[in-house]
């Protein structure tokens, strides 16, 4: 049997080689279908991985609480537009909810920062010291401020990479320098490790962190003392996030004396929720992609069926001869099935090559991150095999049912 299969494959390849143009046109649907699936999946995977990396920059197991109601996508108006969250909310949450490993709070505004004769409009964040630990933010030089700095409303600042680049000469050490924010002098005590873009596309390194108390009393103005722009919490285990979020909600509703029929006056988002929003977008893309792929594979399969039917007719006499010398039904069936599968697999392999080159080219030209997984190549290969098998079945069956005498006499 193995000699039979092997020789049949060789025969099939020879027939393909003989009708190269015809075979090429037949395979085109498969080639394009498989190629586009591989390219699109690879680009999609790359984008997904990039988004996951951005979400990881939020910190580890982070919950964010904004004042006011927010749309489902997480887009919101300027922070602090509602003044419903306070520092005492944050402190109370930590006290009441054991699941929360830590809580932090922050308030921000865009302001002019001056150093020597240079200035820069950056985002000033007044934060509690725990903010930096929740967000897993490390330092390239210097270090964080402390509870003592918060208590004493010290004029110390931590600055991000974008701010460094815009205020300091290359190679100049920012730690120890004195910058002015709204004319108040601040000593730089730390430079933060760059985090790049956030999941929402903002530059996370265009920041200055100062103690929350200092911000309230000396920079942002004294209205709404105690209100915060956002609160943060973290849990030790990622599985605890939904439970912690629910408990936060209950505590805040109670503290804000909300009646059962009233909506929340705050919005809670966990890191997992934010990830899901992004994944939802890429899933829609994936569905569309599979629709495109199915259509091309269908078209490719019909092409294969068509060419095989032509081939069966052209080779009727040959089939008759094979039957006369002892080919059984299954031999003829196998021969045409193997021809169909060979066609579709060669198409599949060409498609895989096309898909991989297309993907590499996308990375090279557009600079998009891409990930070519072995899985998608395996599935593409399998799919072309199934297409060949499925669409080859009808012509092969037709060939195997020919009457030997009629086939021999066919002109």
């Amino acid at each position, binding site marked *: 049997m193995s000699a*039979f299969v092997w020789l049949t494959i060789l025969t099939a390849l020879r027939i393909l080689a*003989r009708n190269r143009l015809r075979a090429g046109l037949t395979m085109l649907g498969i080639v394009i279908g498989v190629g586009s699936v591989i390219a699109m999946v690879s680009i999609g995977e790359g984008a997904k991985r990039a988004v996951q990396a951005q979400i990881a920059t939020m910190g580890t197991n982070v919950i964010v609480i904004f004042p006011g109601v927010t749309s489902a996508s997480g887009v919101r108006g300027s922070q602090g537009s509602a003044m419903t969250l306070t520092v005492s909310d944050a402190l109370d949450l930590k006290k009441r909810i054991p699941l929360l490993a830590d809580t932090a709070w922050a308030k921000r505004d865009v302001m002019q920062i001056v150093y020597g004769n240079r200035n820069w409009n950056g985002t000033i964040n007044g934060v509690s010291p725990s903010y930096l630990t929740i967000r897993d933010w490390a330092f390239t030089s210097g270090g964080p401020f402390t509870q003592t700095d918060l208590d004493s409303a010290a004029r110390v600042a931590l600055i991000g990479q974008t701010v460094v680049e815009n205020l300091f000469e290359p190679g100049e050490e920012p730690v120890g320098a004195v910058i002015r924010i709204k004319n108040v002098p601040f000593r730089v005590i730390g430079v933060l490790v760059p985090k790049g873009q956030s999941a929402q596309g903002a530059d996370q390194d265009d920041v200055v962190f100062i103690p929350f108390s200092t911000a309230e009393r000396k920079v942002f103005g004294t209205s709404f003392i105690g209100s915060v722009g956002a609160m943060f919490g973290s849990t030790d285990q990622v599985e605890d996030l939904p439970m912690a979020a629910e408990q936060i909600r209950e505590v805040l509703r109670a503290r804000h004396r909300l009646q059962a029929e009233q909506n929340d006056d705050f919005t809670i988002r966990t890191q997992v929720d934010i990830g899901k929003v992004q994944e939802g977008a890429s899933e829609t893309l994936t569905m569309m992609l599979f629709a495109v792929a199915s259509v091309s594979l269908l078209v490719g399969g019909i092409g294969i069926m068509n060419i095989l039917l032509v081939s069966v007719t052209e080779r009727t006499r040959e089939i008759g001869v094979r039957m*006369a*010398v*002892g080919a059984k*039904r299954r031999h003829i069936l196998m021969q045409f099935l193997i021809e169909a599968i060979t066609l579709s697999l060669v198409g599949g392999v060409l498609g895989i090559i096309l898909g991989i080159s297309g993907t590499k080219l996308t990375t090279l030209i557009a600079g998009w991150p891409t990930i070519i997984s072995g899985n998608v190549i395996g599935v593409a290969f399998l799919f072309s095999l199934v297409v060949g098998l499925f669409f080859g079945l009808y012509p092969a069956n037709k060939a195997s049912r020919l009457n030997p005498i009629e086939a021999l006499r066919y002109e």
Partner: protein
Amino acid sequence: MGSLIECEDVWKIYRVGDVEVQALRGLSLTIAQGEFVAIMGSSGSGKSTLMNILGCLDQPTKGRYRLNGIEVDNLKPDRLAGIRNQQIGFVFQSFNLIPRTSALENAQLPLFYRGLSLKEQRAQAEAALRRVGLQGREQHYPTQLSGGQQQRVAIARALVTSPSLLLADEPTGNLDTQSSREIMKILETLNRDEGITIILVTHEMDVAASAAREIVIKDGQVLSDRVTKAKPTSSTVGV
């Protein structure tokens, strides 16, 4: 030893629309192992129809056909294919080689369906081509061979399985006199030296002269059946 072929009251009826064509009408025939038989008769008398039935390519509408002691008149297609592969070789008027396929691969074809290893297929097909005088032409395609040579490839294909029965329906019908003579010499040798039973359909007297028995068919029945050559007793000589 029993007869190789036993036909008893064989009928073949074709229906084309409302018209019934009785191609064979109660034909009975017995042929022993090792015979060389020529079948003659006018066009449309039913010779090819008979050959197809004898070759297990077709089955009688009515009647019994026994080949080598096996009732083959009601076997399934795959069993018939197996019998053709094991016991029967065909030579057709129009050669019927597979196009764009070398002489060697054409001669290999029946062995291919026996599931032999490629090496064995090659060796046996080469030997068969040598027996018909085509050594050195193994890699030629049918289009690169003369009609006579193509028919010799077809004979090699028929005898590569060492069949007990070789059926040739007008094997020289498309050939010139010289090539015809060569083909007939090969068939005579196969019958004499290897004891292969040969049944040959022909319209030509000198071709039929190779055979030892001549059967004439008319209107789907045997008109005459006579021995034309004294049968050499197989035990006598080691020729």
